[in-house]
């Protein structure tokens, strides 16, 4: 037996609560059995471990400012591991490794406007930062949240979104790509980029934080370019299949003309100015 700590050995953790959020997404509240907080930064991820099934990298969806020692993961049912995670209930045990990676540059963002642009499940990693800024509202200037999903029933964090809608201290806007005729939806209909022209961006004083599927990045980045948002003021969170999380297994490497990154160590959050020449990034 190995007496030293193997980087591949997960910690035991317990599921405290499971909330179904949409057809494919559930929110899991988890606490390490050590009783210690996860000590993560907004934007970092963990490897969720189900012995007998495997591991999956999942971004942490709660803010470190959340009360108590638990943390939250919003998990879409999309593969072997996540399909089984969806069958778990309160009190069930899982393994956790991490937190890993570079999260959002919270200190850099302080004292500035922050614009969040989330598409679909992209709201999950962004929520860790959104809730951070809301919990420490006085440390940030204007906060705008643009959130889009395909249809109203795919909207995640419904209770929180309802609060955001009513908050006077933030500017919250939402859209769905399509709304079926028999569904009541008072928000905008159209892809996420249709929300961007309508917002004022203080180019000198804003940071824009974007997360969504690869196709969304292309269109959102184009729209931000037209708004003349400086590239170094845009942050993205990228998805890769990190098998190890510790810079060894090779799966999350992305190449570009001018360099290369390991998403698990150099990211998952990247400055757009740095990754824009990396054609493999998106």
């Amino acid at each position, binding site marked *: *037996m*190995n007496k*030293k*700590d*193997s*980087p*591949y*050995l*997960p910690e*035991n953790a317990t599921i405290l609560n499971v909330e179904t959020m949409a057809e494919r997404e559930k929110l899991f509240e988890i606490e390490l059995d050590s009783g210690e907080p996860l000590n993560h930064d907004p934007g970092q991820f963990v490897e969720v*471990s*189900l*012995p*007998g*099934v*495997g*591991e*999956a990298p999942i971004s942490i969806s709660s803010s470190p400012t959340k009360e108590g020692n638990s943390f939250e993961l919003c998990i*879409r049912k*999309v*593969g072997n591991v*996540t399909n089984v995670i969806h069958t778990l209930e309160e009190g069930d*045990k*899982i*393994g956790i490794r991490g937190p890993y990676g570079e999260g959002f540059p919270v200190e850099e963002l302080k004292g500035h406007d922050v614009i969040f642009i989330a598409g679909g499940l992209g709201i999950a990693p962004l929520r860790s930062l959104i809730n951070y800024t809301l919990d420490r509202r006085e440390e940030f200037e204007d906060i705008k949240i643009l959130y889009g999903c395909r249809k109203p029933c795919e909207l995640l964090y419904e209770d929180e979104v309802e609060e955001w809608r009513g908050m006077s201290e933030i500017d919250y806007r939402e859209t769905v790509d399509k709304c079926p005729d028999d569904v009541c939806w008072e928000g905008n209909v159209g892809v996420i980029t249709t929300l961007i022209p309508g917002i004022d961006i203080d180019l000198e004083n804003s940071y824009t934080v974007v997360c969504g*599927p*690869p196709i969304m990045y292309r269109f959102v980045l184009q729209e931000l370019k037209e708004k003349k948002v400086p590239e170094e003021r845009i942050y993205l969170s990228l*998805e*890769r*299949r990190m*098998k*190890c999380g*510790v*810079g*060894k*297994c*090779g*799966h999350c*490497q*992305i*190449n*570009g*003309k*001018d*360099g*290369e990154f390991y998403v698990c160590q150099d990211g998952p959050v990247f400055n757009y100015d740095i990754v824009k020449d990396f*054609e*493999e990034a998106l």
Partner: protein
Amino acid sequence: MKIIEKEDFGNFVDKLIANDERDVVGVKSKDSKYVFDKLEKAEELELDYDVTILPPKKYFMPQRETLVEYETRDGIEMESVNEVIPRIIIGIHPYDLEAIKQMDKVFADSPEDYNYSEKRSKSILIGVNMKRTSEWSFAGSMGNATINDGYDLMLTDLGDKYAVEIGSSKGRELLDEEYFKMRDAEPEEIKEVQNIEENIENDFEKELDFSPKKLPWLLAQKYGDEDFWEENAEDCYSCGTCNIVCPTCYCFDVQDFNDISLEEGERMRQWDGCMLEAFAEVAGGENFREERAERYRHRYMRKGRYLYNRFGDIACVGCGRCSSQCVPDIADPTDIFNKLWRDKDE
């Protein structure tokens, strides 16, 4: 430098096999090729060989190994596992020693990978200078025809005797065994070893037209030339053989294997390859290197630039295994590297 008669060296190896608690492995012939394998007796050892099918990397990073054992009967119990078999490995060529030096850095990088580093630190590496070279090898151009460190002992064949260079205290301890009959080398024997090392540099059929130090720069220039990569990758089978035989490929996949009770099992890592189609695929189905040309380019970028930027080594040692095993014959690094040089912008 020490000298040992070949007969005495054979006796020494036989005594190690019989008495040393470590496994003794070395180069053996297998059909018309060579492999690293456990030695039953010294006469199986073939120190005059061109190249082995697989590099000795397999002893520190096995094709499949357990990282964690788990049990799920009552909650979850997990324990890290490291199955370390200490070994004396005899007959490693300089390019493979260089590859091991590089892998040592990769796995020592924080957080340290003990599954590798403990296997490595409990092994003894006995190198041997090449007497002949593989027709695919270009180790000379990569600066790896000979090596000055990274071994515990280094042998050079001097006809009926071996010259033995001591590279570490572990190597010296091995020689202190009472059954090692040796003497100090005479000046002319030291000179002979130097001559052999100088001559082997020029004994490769394949070579680079330029210094490998230029590779990171050349690859950066060529990165965006999609036609180039498509043309060269056109016949690639995406089989991953070049990854499997490479002494500096270490990417892995991790999978769980339940036993029949379904309540316990092992989490294992196994060799993976960036040339395989699903390597950069994520759960939702998006594949970030879907095209053969992207994967082919990735492999070159990684060998020639990424690992260089991160660890300071060109991660191609010039062994030629990838090209010798490639069925459509598109994996010869000298072909690609020399094209990069030919096409360079000044």
